[in-house]
């Protein structure tokens, strides 16, 4: 018996090995077939358009197509930035994103801290659910809501100002109010959503820290200041850095629905994305739209790589890739 067994095992092993070799080929082909639909879609809708970016250097005409249209070098870029428009839309995009990141962080943290203080209470879930609700509202409906509040004839805010004896403000003709309006809308729509990540982080903090602190006589404020916030700092920094990575990408849906195509408000509400959208749909100037898009993608890539590099240095597991 003892002499036979090794020989049988040898045969089995050899058979196993060839089967394994066949299996790896079959397995790899199968896995590739599984990946194929997704890979193909990414190719068509993410890689193929890259070729279309050459229109940034062309005077694009629909009739002539991408190849047939004339090369114009950097004319499109010169046109956008020469008139100062490029700087305006870039500045607005970055400005709004910084406002949104900062206000969103403060709002979400504050909400999370307060909910965390009463998280044993049954009402905590109710408040959370209420603040989360705007997340489900489409931007189309948000735009209608905003119009309902801001319109000068019978809008809720107009009525309120009238009741307070203030002058009438025509919001849709006064660009100076829009940064504040957009911050409020952004907070309204996103604060409940944003607070959940931080709340989860707070729930993960060991109770023992707080017990030890309260034995040492720390009150709740001190506990928040010296325990909760420092322990949450890595999460805050990571999320903020990841958001900073997208600082050149504007929220097209939000700006289109809130402002519409309103030249009076361009000075403070025109961002790269709305400019591209308008160039495509209203002006039909695809070369210019392509140039703005390409500029956005390139600076966006640099920004993403930089922030992701930083995140990677700080926290390996939280990096985007």
């Amino acid at each position: 018996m003892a002499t036979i067994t090794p020989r049988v095992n040898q045969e089995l092993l050899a058979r196993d090995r060839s089967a394994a070799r066949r299996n790896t080929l079959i397995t790899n082909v199968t896995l590739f077939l599984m990946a194929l639909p997704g890979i193909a879609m990414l190719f068509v809708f993410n890689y193929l358009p890259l070729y279309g970016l050459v229109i940034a250097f062309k005077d694009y005409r629909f009739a002539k197509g991408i190849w047939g249209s004339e090369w114009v070098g950097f004319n499109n870029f010169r046109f956008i930035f020469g008139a100062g428009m490029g700087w305006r839309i870039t500045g607005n995009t970055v400005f709004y994103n910084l406002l949104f990141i900062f206000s969103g962080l403060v709002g979400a943290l504050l909400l999370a801290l307060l909910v965390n203080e009463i998280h044993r209470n049954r009402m905590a879930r109710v408040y959370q659910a209420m603040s989360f609700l705007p997340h489900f509202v489409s931007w189309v409906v948000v735009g209608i809501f905003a119009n309902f509040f801001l319109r000068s004839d019978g809008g809720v805010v107009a009525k309120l100002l009238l009741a307070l004896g203030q002058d009438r403000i025509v919001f849709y003709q006064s660009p100076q109010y829009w940064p504040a309006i957009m911050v409020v809308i952004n907070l309204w729509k996103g604060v409940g959503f944003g607070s959940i990540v931080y709340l989860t982080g707070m729930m993960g903090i060991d109770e023992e820290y707080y017990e030890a602190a309260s034995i040492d006589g720390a009150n709740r404020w001190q506990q928040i200041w010296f325990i909760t916030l420092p322990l949450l700092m890595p999460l805050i920094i990571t999320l903020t850095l990841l958001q900073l990575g997208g600082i050149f990408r504007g929220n097209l849906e939000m700006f289109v629905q809130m402002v519409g195509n309103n030249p009076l408000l361009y000075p403070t509400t025109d961002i790269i994305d709305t400019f591209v959208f308008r160039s495509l749909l209203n002006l039909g100037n695809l070369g210019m739209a392509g140039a703005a898009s390409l500029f956005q993608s390139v600076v966006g890539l640099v920004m993403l790589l930089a922030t992701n590099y930083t995140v990677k240095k700080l926290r390996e597991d939280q990096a985007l890739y």
Partner: protein
Amino acid sequence: MTSNIRSQRVMQLAEFTTKSFIHAFLLIVGLLCILPMILVVSYSLSDDVLIAERGISLIPQGFNLYSYEFIFTFPEQVIRSYGVTILISALGTGGGLLVSSLLGYALSRTYFKMRGTLVLYCVITMLFNAGLVPTYLVVKTMLQLHKIPWLVLTLPTMIMPFYVMMFRSHFAGLPHEILESARIDGAGEWRLFFNIAFPLSKPWLATIGLMYILKYWNEWIPAMLYVENAKWYPLQYLLQVMMRNVQALEAMIQAVGTQVKIPGPSLRMAMVVVAAGPAMFVFMLLQRYFIRGITSGAVKG
């Protein structure tokens, strides 16, 4: 001893006051969050004339259902748009889940030789985006997808690299022993995926599926860019077009000064309720799945 008890009482009182303030503050924040919804519902049930006189309130003024009756006198377009939205949400979500979970599964297998290359292939699309115009050109002039409305409304945004990565890290975390023992028993990759990995991922499919549904349900840019026939307007785009038309009509009437009766603001608000209300209610009920999506989204592989 007494002073000790007294100070304890003071502390309890202080804590009670703080907690009450927190509750009050959170209640106000919560109410502010749902205030627009309440006002719109109230407006849609109100009498336009009374609103114009007294202003809007939380409780409907001169309660009536005329606006809803008006909408349901000619419900064809609304019902059609509901159908379109439901169709593209179902197709887009089903397709998106299948395609991205398959890709995520393949990318999670350590023995897959092309894994590294294909992961990079996916990550690049997250980092660099050609933008709206080149995509528009590919869809419209190169592929002419806009001739098939249901396809153009679903396919271009069906694969989301971020969700692929979520699936990938989830599948990578499945208990190795289960899949390995099935493999030794002779199960191929398709069987491993459909009979083991897929059923083990139900919570994830639910969470990512809901994110897909929310995305497709609220989407309007593809419709604006590609859909020419009003028969294929999804709900959100229909809403937008109707609002724009009513505004144009109002401006025209103001300019001309005729006495034509146009649908009042309450009708518009009723449109918003009919178009957005039911889905929002459903999303609200399924909130906890969304919450899981956010909290697990931070964990990547």
